[in-house]
């Protein structure tokens, strides 16, 4: 399936973090590349939306939104700056 990008998860991320996140940066724990959230590859299938590194395709984090409940698991992505 065709990936989207980090703009597609801007809504739940803004709700979760309480601030605009598409310009926030983080580094990939797999390959080290620093990306802005908007630049990530996002696969929106199933209950969780998976954000992957645009360079190595490693899984960075998963966003799950069920009704008003949002969870973000970010094992592979170290947020370094919220712009």
């Amino acid at each position, binding site marked *: 399936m*065709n*990936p*989207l*990008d*980090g*703009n*597609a998860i*801007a*809504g739940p991320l*803004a*709700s979760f973090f309480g601030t*605009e996140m*598409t*310009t926030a940066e983080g580094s990939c724990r797999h390959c080290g590349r620093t990306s*802005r*959230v*908007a*630049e990530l590859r996002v696969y*929106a299938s199933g209950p969780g939306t998976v954000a992957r590194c645009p360079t190595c395709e490693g899984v960075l984090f998963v966003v799950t*939104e069920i*009704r008003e409940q949002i969870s973000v698991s970010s094992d592979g992505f170290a947020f370094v700056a919220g*712009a």
Partner: protein
Amino acid sequence: MLDVPNWPGHLAGQHVDLRLTAEDGYQAQRSYSIASAPEDRDLVLTVARVDDGEVSPYLVDDLQPGDELEVRGPIGGYFAWEDRMTGPVLLVGGGSGVVPLRSMLRHHRASQSTLETRLIYSVRSPEDVIYRDELTELAGDDTIDVRLAFTRTSPPEWDGLRGRIDAGVLDDLGWDSSPDAVAFICGPNGFVEFVAQSLVALGHPPRQIKTERFG
């Protein structure tokens, strides 16, 4: 057109999430770009009807004035053009990807920006062009250049662009590659990827190329 209580205002290029809840509790959520400029009185979305879609047929065919929707937004900051930016602007839209770019063009005019701005709008056929009259009118502005590129059917005696927007087309049009020039590309994934790679191949800094993809 949405009437959102306590709407804080938006930036050109931002979107909203709309959530619909069926009588049985089933929910569906989609993102839609804001088509109006920050200066416009009304908050406007333009929704392209996807025939086998879950949400857009309802919004286009069934939604009535006065119906209520759950709206989250405005959302985004990366894919947003603000008049405080100082460089020339290239906007490249594929299909309904032109919607947030239309907001940017309206903002350009409303803020009396003098930045050179070019829209390249890739669309299948003349019948598919959204905002045709408005784009024609905007193209009358000295600082705004509008180019349509038809990928399937073009009007008779069309002497404009045809086919894919590749590096050759972009090079021929001569986009300003000064360091503060910025490009916004919005459309289907394959379109955005191809145009972005073409710009990078022409030597434009990836960080100055902002992309937004839809499914």
